[in-house]
């Protein structure tokens, strides 16, 4: 059920690269295609080398620190005013962030 994305046997052909670019909202320049493919290809090759290690009896590691989550109490505090939180917004209307129309 759990399939870490990059660990799949993924060929970094043109289509996969464009798809990854689209998902990451990165525009991929035609001229960079070749170098990107080979860079990503070598990363995958490195990961694949790790896959040859026998991890049969090892629990998956989600974090390299041997500690667990520290929890805080449920106390609500006044954090920021709308003005403060919108201060860095590239575009705002009234007290909202505004973006080009998104059509559902």
């Amino acid at each position, binding site marked *: *059920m*759990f399939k*870490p*994305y990059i660990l799949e046997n993924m060929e970094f052909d043109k289509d996969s690269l464009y*798809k990854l670019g*689209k*998902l990451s*909202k990165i525009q991929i320049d035609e001229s960079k295609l070749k170098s990107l493919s080979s860079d990503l290809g070598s990363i995958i090759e490195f990961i694949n080398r790790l896959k040859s290690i026998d991890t049969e009896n090892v629990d*998956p590691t*989600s*974090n390299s*620190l041997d*500690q*667990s*989550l*520290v*929890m*805080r*109490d*449920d*106390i*609500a*505090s*006044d*954090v*920021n*005013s*709308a003005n403060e*939180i*919108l201060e860095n917004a590239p575009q705002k*209307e*009234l*007290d*909202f*962030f*505004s*973006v*080009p*129309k*998104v*059509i*559902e």
Partner: protein
Amino acid sequence: MINGWELVIGIEIHAQVKSKSKLFSSSSTEFGSGPNSQVSLVDAAMPGMLPVINKFCVEQAVRSGIGLNAKINNKSIFDRKNYFYQDLPQGYQISQFKDPIVGNGFIEIESEGQSKKIGIERLHLEQDAGKSLHDQDPNLTFVDLNRSGIALMEIVSMPDMKSPDEAVEYVKKVRSILRYLDTCDGNMEQGSLRADVNVSVNKPGNDLGTRCEIKNLNSFKYIHSAIIYEAKRQIRLIESGENIIQETRLYNIDSGETRSMRSKEDAHDYRYFPDPDLLPLILEDDWIKKIRSSIPELPDQKKERFIREYSLSEYDSSVIVSDKSTSDYYEKVVKDRNPKLVTTWVTSELFSVLNKKNLSIDESPISPNHLGELIDNIDNGKISSRQAKEIFEEMCETGESANNIINEKGLSQISDEGELEKLVDNVISSNPENVEKYKNGKDKLFGFFVGEAMKLSKGKANPKVLNELLKSKLNT
């Protein structure tokens, strides 16, 4: 079954956790505040901010898991679910994928008069997104991040439901359980509880069909009609030789149709991975045990107890316990009173007023104490049930107590035998002909005498005492 096709339905419920602050930040979760007034730097995904988990939200998830008869996992992991959308400033939602906080469970629903088990696959904690407003400006979408980061419990069912009715019963039951546990307020209009419904159709005995997911249904009515529309659409496509494409669809509440949600085309590629900002969540057995011991009586248990203690019918009991506030109200009224009378007054008179005025029981114009007082007056014969209805109506309008209205209007019933005897004698002596006919066998005239006596008493005579008196006088 629709035209020989079987329906298979699975449901994901998103239930907002009832907490004061958000899942990973201290901003308030209060509904209805001004836009972007409850947004911390974490919620706005400012660089360098780190999430810190809210212990109470974790507790609420565990409590809900116990209420769903589910396994509580001692270790769970938070993952990043990556997608781009304007109301998700992080560019990913913190969710749980492979190791959720709650595993397998089940609930029981009523289906066609029988009890049916519906499996729960999991419950996990995740962040809610912000809110987009598309209708404020012709060229812009507005974003409010107040909801961003509020804790949600996603409750995933097994595909165990076979009809729209079962689907609605399932959501109703989960909502009821969460409200009993006080882990989610269940307010569907405000979006505190919403359902994504997966529907597929197949011929009996055949493999399951391809499913479509209808997103964000926030009323029982919409869940019901969206499933019917979607099943019929799929059947129509298959019967005309086309294939179903697995996709996410939106339900249009105005047209009652579902349509493809193209923006989610790439959405299934979420590239989940463990969130490096968050360590594994470890829950000690003792802590889980402590929560388990604080679980209140849940609807199924309460239903059984009401049947046992108050001799309610199955039906009345399930109606009363389905909503926690209703059952609380009922128990306040029924304490030390005649359960039969209380049940009738709550389920018929009170419910019909609430329905008419479109009020919830928490907004009832009549408090449990006031209704109890009214019922006391009926039970001890001070007022007739006809008078009680009048007083009840007046109580609804004015909020006055039953006793005040009875005193003010001089409404109390005449039960005094001496006083009633005078009335009866009066009626008999002024209608000698009818008395004669009655004595000669015209039994039907009895009602006439009751009517006359009632008239004389201005409707205040206690009908039971009056009947007895009339009978003994006329039959001698």
